[in-house]
C-alpha cells in the first residue's frame, strides 16, 4: 500500500517479541503518543533478523528501518542480541557503499518496561527520517559510469615469478601424487597468454603445470567438490587464504588436503590485458622478464608492466607466501608495512552517496545475472542451493531489474562478511567487468575496523567475528537517543 502522501514516510521496524515489542505495548498502554509512520514486524529475537531483510526494505522503498531488541545481557534467548549487534553494525557500515544513507537504519535496545524510552526512540527516529526526507529510489537514479584508476603503488615489488622453483615444485608433486586423487594447479589455456585450471591425476600431467603472472584463477574454488578425497592444491598466497577459510568452515578436512606453495610476485589483470590486446588472430610470443610480460600478437608487441597491469588486489597484498602449506619452496619478496585501499573501493570512496547509487544503477543495468561471480567465489559454498534461485526461501524475484541484481550482490557481500579473503575472483569472472569486488572490500574493511583488524583466511582455528560476540564490544557503542 502507498504511504499517506505528505503525511507519512515509510518506516519499517523489526522488534523482538520479548523486550522491545513489549516496550512498544507498554508505551501504548500508557497512551504515549508517537508519530504514526512506523510499521512493526514482530520477530522472536533480534538475532532472528537477517540484515538482508533490512536491505530488502531499504532497496524496496523504505525511508527508514528501525531494529530494537533486548538490552545486551538481557536477551530472552541468552545471546541473540549479541550476535545481532555485530551483524547490524556491519550492515550499518556497509549501507553507504550502496549509496544508502546509514542514518536511515538504526538499531537500539528497549526493554519491556521502557515505554517512555520507546516513545522517545520512535519520535527521534521518525523526526530524523522526516529530516532526511523521502529516500532516493534506486530505480529512479540516473545511471553514472565511472572507472577506477587501477594502478597503485604496491606494498612490495611486483614481478613475474622468474626465479620461482617450478621444477622443484613439480618434483614434489610427482613424489606426492601416488597418495593423492588429484592435484589442482594451472596449465596453458587456448594460447600462451592465458591459463586454465589443471587437474593433475597422472604423473605425465605434472609437466603441464605453469607458474607466473597469468595464473589468475583461485584453485581453492574446486576444493569443496573434492570433500572426502585426498587432494593436492598449488596455491598463491591469496589462494591459500581461501583454503584456510574453507578449513575453518569445516568444508574440507586438513588431513585430506596437501598444499604446495610458491611465493607469488603478482598476477595480471586479464581484463585490462585483453582490452589492450584487442581482437587478435594468434599470439606470436610471450616473454616474461622481472618487470612484466611482453606479448606479441599478430606481429604487434604489447608491453605489460606489473606495476601498471597487476590485479588491483596485488598492490596491497600482504601474503605473497602461503599462510598455510605442506610444501613451501622459495622465498617471497618482503612486504612494506602499511595498507592500500584497493582501487575499486577507492573509486567508491571518492563518490557521494547519490553518485554511488547512480553508479550501481548504471553498473547493474549491465549485469547479465549470469552468476559467474558466485560460481567463481571459493566461499560460495551453498552451490546448488543458493538462496538467489530458490523459492523456499524466496529472497529474490526473477524480475530482471537492476534493483534485484544489486540485491543479489548485497546478498553475496553480506554472506561473505568476515569470510571474504578478497581474492577477487567474483570481479575477475564478471564477463561485463563490473567492479563488484568493492562491495566485498567494504564489508571486509568494516569487519576489520570493528573486530580488531580481523582478516579472514589467516587462522584456521579463528572464530569468525560474525559467529561470535563479546559481552562488551570494544568498538560498538550504544547510541544516544536524547
Amino acid at each position, binding site marked *: *500500500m502507498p504511504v499517506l502522501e505528505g*503525511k*507519512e514516510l*515509510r518506516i*519499517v521496524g523489526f522488534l523482538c*517479541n*520479548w523486550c522491545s515489542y*513489549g516496550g*512498544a*505495548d507498554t*508505551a*501504548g498502554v500508557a497512551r504515549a*503518543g*508517537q*508519530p*504514526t509512520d512506523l*510499521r*512493526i*514486524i*514482530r*520477530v*522472536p529475537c533480534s*538475532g*532472528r*533478523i*537477517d540484515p538482508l*531483510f533490512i536491505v*530488502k*526494505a531499504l532497496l*524496496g*522503498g*523504505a525511508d527508514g528501518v528501525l531494529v530494537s531488541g533486548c538490552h545486551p*545481557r*538481557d536477551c*530472552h*534467548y*541468552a545471546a*541473540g542480541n549479541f*550476535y545481532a549487534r555485530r551483524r547490524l553494525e556491519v550492515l550499518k557500515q556497509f549501507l553507504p557503499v550502496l549509496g544508502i544513507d546509514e542514518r536511515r537504519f538504526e538499531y537500539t535496545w528497549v*526493554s*519491556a*518496561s521502557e515505554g517512555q524510552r520507546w*516513545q522517545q526512540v520512535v519520535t527521534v527516529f521518525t523526526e530524523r527520517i522526516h529530516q532526511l526526507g523521502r529516500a532516493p*529510489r534506486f530505480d529512479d537514479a540516473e545511471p553514472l559510469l565511472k572507472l577506477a584508476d587501477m594502478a597503485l603503488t604496491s606494498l612490495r615489488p611486483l614481478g613475474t615469478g622468474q626465479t620461482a622453483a617450478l621444477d622443484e615444485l613439480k618434483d614434489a608433486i610427482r613424489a606426492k601424487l601416488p597418495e593423492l586423487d588429484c592435484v589442482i594447479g594451472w596449465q596453458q589455456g587456448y594460447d600462451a597468454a592465458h591459463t586454465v585450471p589443471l587437474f593433475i591425476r597422472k604423473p605425465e600431467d605434472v609437466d603441464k603445470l605453469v607458474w607466473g603472472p597469468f595464473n589468475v584463477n583461485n584453485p581453492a574454488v574446486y576444493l569443496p567438490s573434492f570433500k572426502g578425497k585426498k587432494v593436492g592444491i598449488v596455491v598463491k598466497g591469496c589462494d591459500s587464504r581461501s583454503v584456510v577459510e574453507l578449513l575453518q568452515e*569445516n*568444508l574440507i578436512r586438513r588431513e585430506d588436503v596437501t598444499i604446495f606453495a610458491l611465493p607469488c610476485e603478482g598476477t595480471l589483470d586479464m581484463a585490462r590485458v585483453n582490452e589492450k590486446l584487442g581482437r587478435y588472430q594468434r599470439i606470436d610470443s610471450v616473454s616474461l622478464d622481472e618487470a612484466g610480460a611482453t606479448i606479441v600478437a599478430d606481429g604487434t608487441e604489447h608491453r605489460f608492466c606489473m606495476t601498471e597491469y597487476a590485479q588491483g588486489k596485488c598492490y596491497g597484498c600482504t601474503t605473497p607466501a602461503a599462510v598455510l602449506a605442506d610444501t613451501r619452496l622459495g622465498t617471497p619478496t618482503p612486504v612494506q608495512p602499511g595498507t592500500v585501499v584497493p582501487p575499486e573501493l577507492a573509486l567508491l570512496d571518492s563518490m557521494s552517496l547519490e553518485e554511488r547509487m547512480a553508479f550501481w544503477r548504471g553498473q547493474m543495468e549491465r549485469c547479465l545475472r549470469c552468476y559467474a561471480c558466485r560460481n567463481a567465489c571459493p566461499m560460495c*559454498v*551453498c*552451490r546448488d*542451493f*543458493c*538462496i538467489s534461485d*530458490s523459492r*523456499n*526461501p*524466496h*529472497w529474490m524475484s526473477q524480475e530482471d531489474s537492476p534493483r534485484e541484481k544489486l540485491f543479489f550482490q548485497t546478498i553475496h557481500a553480506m554472506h561473505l562478511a568476515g569470510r571474504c579473503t578478497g581474492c577477487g575472483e567474483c570481479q575477475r569472472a564478471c564477463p561485463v567487468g563490473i567492479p563488484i569486488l568493492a562491495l566485498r572490500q567494504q564489508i571486509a574493511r568494516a569487519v576489520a575496523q570493528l573486530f580488531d583488524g580481523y582478516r579472514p583466511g589467516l587462522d584456521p582455528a579463528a*572464530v569468525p567475528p560474525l*559467529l*561470535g560476540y563479546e559481552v562488551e564490544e570494544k568498538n560498538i557503542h550504544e547510541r544516544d537517543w536524547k
Partner: protein
Amino acid sequence: MRIGVFICHCGSNIGGTVDCARVAELSRAFPDVVYADDPMYTCAEPGQAAIEAAIHEHRLDGVVVASCTPRMHEPTFRRTVERAGLNRYMFEMANIREHVSWIGKDKEANTNKAAELVLMAVEKLRRNTPLTPKSFDITKKVLIIGGGVAGIQAALDCADGGVPVVLVEREATIGGKMAKLDKTFPTVDCSACILGPKMVDVAQHPNITLYAYAEVEDISGYVGNFSVKIRKKAAYVDWSKCTGCGACTEKCPARKTPDAFNELTGPTTAINIAFPQAIPKKAVINAAHCRQLSKGKCGVCAKVCPTGAIRYDMEDEIVTEEVGSIVAATGYDLMDWTVYSEYGGGKYPDVITSLQYERLLSASGPTGGHILRPSDGREPKSVVFIQCVGSRDKSVGRPYCSGFCCMYTAKQAVLTKDHIPDSQSWVFYMDIRAPGKMYDEFTRRAVEEYGTEYIRGRVSAIYPDGKGQYVVMGVDTLLGQPVEIKADLVVLAVGIEASKGASQLAEKLRISYDQYGFFMESHVKLKPVETNTAGVFLAGVCQGAKDIPASVAQGSAAAAKVLALFARDKLESDPQIAQVDMRRCVNCGKCIRCCPFGAIKEVEMRGEGKAQVIETVCQGCGLCTATCPQGAIQLSHATDNQILAEVNALCQC
C-alpha cells in the same frame, strides 16, 4: 487460501481513533481474504462465537484478528480457531490498539496504518503452515531462590503439595529481612515468633532440600527441564558435624568482625552463627577476619569444637540439581542512603537506618533489646524518624514508593514509647500511605495513644549541636513554618532497591528486569506472578515493593503456579522451532556454532554430515535462520518467506 479478517473496535479503545469499518472494507481487497467484519468486542464470548461461525459458514482456513497486542490475546484466539477445527497456528494478529489507536491521534493515518498492519498479517498468514506441538516429560521438582518469608512460603506450599523443593539461600541462614525485624505491624507480633516455626518447618520438611550459604551459579534448560548449578560457598565448617553448640563463637578471638546480620550495629566473631533461631543453625567462618585463614595462626575454633567440624581447607563446591520450575524470591536491599549529605552522609553514629533500629529493638540484637545510642550507649529520649529517604525521590533516581516504610515507622515509634516511656518521637513524612487491613487504624494509634508527633515536611539538615544531641532542621508544610528538633537519635526510613546481584540472576533466568533491578512480571495486572520465561515465577519484593502479608501471598501464589504446572505429566513443546531442509544443508556448522542452547547437532545422513534440530531443546529464537547462508534452517512461523512477505507488503514501490 480462504482468509477471514476481524477488525475489533474494542469499544472505543480502537474504534475511537480508527475507522474499523473502513479497515474491514479495505481488507476485503487483500489477497485470499474472503470475509471481513468489524465486531465490537472480538475477545468477548459473542465475538469468538462469530469467528467460529464465520469459519464454518465461509469455509475459512485462516483467520486474522486486528485488535490488541498478541502478547495479550493470541492464545485466546488460537483456542477459538482451534474450536472451529482449524490448526491454531493458522491465525495471525495485527496489533491496532497498543501500536495504533492508543498512540496516534490522526484518524486517517491510524486507519491507513491499521489496514497496512492487517495486510502484513494476511501476507504472513498466507505462508503459515499448520504446526503440531510435541509432548515431553517434566521433572517435578522446583528450585526456589531466596529463603526470605516469600521463598519460605513458596517452599512450604510446594512441599506440602508433594513437590520436592530445592531452596537456595545466599546467607548462612534463611529468614531474610523478616528475621531481622523485632516486631511486625499492625499487630506488633514478635517477628521471630511467627517466622521461627515456618523456618523450622523448612528444616524438617521431608520434601525440602535446603542449600544455605549457596548461590545459583548457572541455569540452563527450559520449562519442565532446567538444570541448575549451585555454588555451595565454603563455610570452613563441616555442617554435617556442626551441632550449632556455639562453643567456637565463645572462644573465637577475632571479636571485631563486622556483623552483617545485625546491620553492622555491633561486632561479632569471625566464626559465627547469625542468630539464635538460625536455620540451619550452623557456624560459618568469615574468611576475611579469621586469623587462621588470613594470617595462618590461631586455630582456636578447631581446638574447641567438640565434633571436629572445622575445615580450614574447605573450598566452594558446585552441585547440580535438575528441576522443572523455578521461583525467584530474592527480596531487596536498602539503597545507599549515604548519598544524602544533608543527613550527614553516614558521618554521624546516631543517624541510623530503620533496619539497624530493628536490631537495637530486638532481644537477639547487639544491645539485648535495649534501645541504646550507638555513639555513647545512652538511652535516647528524643527520637526523630525521617521517611522517604531514597523513596519517591527523583533526585537520587528512586522515583518509586518503597511501600512499607510508613507502617514500620509508626510501629517503631510505638515500640520506642513502649521501651522508653518518657521518650518523645517525631516523624517527618511526605504522605502517610496506610492502605492495608488495620493499617490506618494503627498509624492513628501511634499518634493518638503513643503521642507520636507527625510533621508533614522534609528535613533539610542534621548537624550535631556539640552537646551530644543532633539538631534536625525541617519544615512543617502544613503550618508553613520551619521546625527545629533536638534529637538523641535519628532513624531514617531508607528506601529499598532490588537485591544485590538481582540483574545478574535475571540474566541467568532469562527474565526481564526494570531499570531499578526489580524483576518484570508477565503482565502488570493479570500475570503478576508469571514471568515471560515459561516455568519461572516470582514471589516477594524481587518483583516490586510489598510488605510481609503481600510477600507471603505471592509466595503461595507462586507455589500454586508451580503445582498447576506439575499437575500435568507431560508438557507440550512450542512447535515454533527451527527445522532443517536436509537437502539444502551443506554442513558448514555455522548454526551449530551460534545456537545459544546447543539445540542443533550434526548427524550423518547417507554418508553426509547434516545439521539436525533437537526439538525439545530448541527455544525458537531463530538465530540459526538468520545465520544460515543457504536458508536451509528455517524457524517455523517466522520463516524467511513470512518475514519477507511482511517486508514486501510494505516496501514494493
